């Protein structure tokens, strides 16, 4: 087992190729829930969990069903189906088994279903031909990277709550500017690990 490669995958996916700041994916959730720290933390936890499980599920389906049947060209539609089915069943099970957890995290689950990072990770996994553990590592890294982005953004937006921002820029516009400036800072990591 190559632990070095797994570690590199996690670091690369979370910091160097951070989905939000270098590929600009998943921005709808990123701007939607980063207004308050509390929601940002809840979203981060749910997101990372869903990311890891869905990348594992889609890896199994891709390797043992789609490749033997030679239907890999359908992967976008199949992965969407897998993720939606998994998230919906998790949602239903959680509602029955643990209502308290459902009321805390349930609202985020509905948002996650159609998130583009959740779809991008299985697609990249299958495109790069990662093994099962590598796919999991990539999923963990991407989830942590998204969590980091959300928490940073929420702390900045809470700090700017009382700032005297010019009226046309309040709310979403200034958030886009902040995201751009953070992305500028994150380019410093580029070239750190070349996979």
């Amino acid at each position, binding site marked *: 087992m190559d632990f070095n490669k797994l570690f590199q995958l996690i670091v690369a996916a979370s910091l160097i190729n951070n989905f939000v700041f270098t590929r600009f994916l998943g921005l709808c959730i990123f701007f939607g829930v980063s207004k308050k720290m509390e929601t940002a933390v809840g979203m981060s936890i749910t997101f990372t969990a869903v990311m890891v499980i869905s990348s594992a599920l889609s890896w199994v389906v891709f390797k043992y069903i789609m490749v033997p049947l030679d239907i890999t060209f359908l992967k976008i539609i199949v992965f969407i189906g897998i993720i939606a089915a998994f998230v919906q069943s998790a949602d239903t099970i959680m509602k029955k088994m643990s209502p308290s957890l459902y009321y805390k995290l349930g609202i985020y689950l509905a948002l996650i279903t159609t998130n583009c990072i959740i779809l991008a990770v299985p697609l990249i996994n299958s495109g790069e031909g990662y093994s099962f553990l590598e796919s999991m590592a990539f999923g963990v890294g991407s989830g942590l990277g998204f969590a980091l982005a959300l928490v940073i953004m929420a702390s900045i937006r*809470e700090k700017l709550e009382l700032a005297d921002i010019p009226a046309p820029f309040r709310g979403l516009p200034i958030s886009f500017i902040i995201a751009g400036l953070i992305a*500028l800072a994150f380019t410093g990591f580029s070239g750190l690990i070349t996979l």
Partner: protein
Amino acid sequence: MSTEAKTHQLVVSVSPHVRDEESIARIMWTVNIALLPAFIMAVYYFGPRAVYVTALCIATSVLSEYLFQRWLKKKTTISDGSAFLTGLLLGMNLPPGVPFYIPLVGSFVAIVITKTLFGGLGYNIFNPALIGRAFLLLTWPKLMTKWYEPTALFVGLDAKTTATPLGILKEEGLAKLVEHFGDKAGVYKSLFFGSTAGSLGETSAIALLIGAAILLYKRYITWHIPFSFLASVAVIAWIFGGKGGLFTGDPVIHLLSGGLMLGAFFMATDYVTCPTIRKGQIIFGIGCGAVTMLIRLKGGFPEGVMFAILLMNCFAPLIDRNVKPEQFGAVKKKEDKK
């Protein structure tokens, strides 16, 4: 009788009760003055171009702040020296031979996008001058990494181009760097006095240290951020910087080269963009040092001070949240996890 009654009068007023002569304008102009030695060294080594680039930066910064505040119908604050300081710092972070539009664009990004849109001085999340420079570096990477050999006397525009000490260290190793300057003492000497290639104001460590001494003496900056920044750079350079295994690196070269002195004393310590709590400032400094060395030793860029400070600027609000001192006598809230 009446005078005595007056002196014993009980004055009821809202805080603050202790007043001082200090003001934003006074601090900002003092920092500008503290940068003067470094500016003089820049003019000495890089000639009239240093004046030209810096003046353009300052003029654009002050003008764009003025125009924007007029346009937004806010109080004009150009006399407090903060826009002047942003322009001066940006100018000192640029290579000597840049064409005229680079200072213009950089200052505009620094003042308008990074500061005015966030609500002006006091609300910006990032250091304006550094965002200006990062923007320029990524937009015009060729122009922003064209360094000139310093020449002690004024020369024409055909000065020799060369690599910065950190660039040589990254691409060709320590042996080549030593060869470039004669011997090891020669390397230290040129880095200390500033006769190396680099951005205008960053090359001369001695001039920046004089400025830093003024600020520390006036207590406009405290030791927490610069010291933890420099110390973590030195320790990491000593442990991981050498080619011959652990603990063989040369911390002195890493401390004196690049924008470290300028960054640690003048930019990481920016009141607005660093954590306000002392413990947080030490974490901030260590983070800056660690990221700087990570980029210098492993990253794609030869110099990492700018990116390190910007990255830690992102984390500053988060650090501040987590090092909040506990209120005196407060009881920790018990969290019930179900």
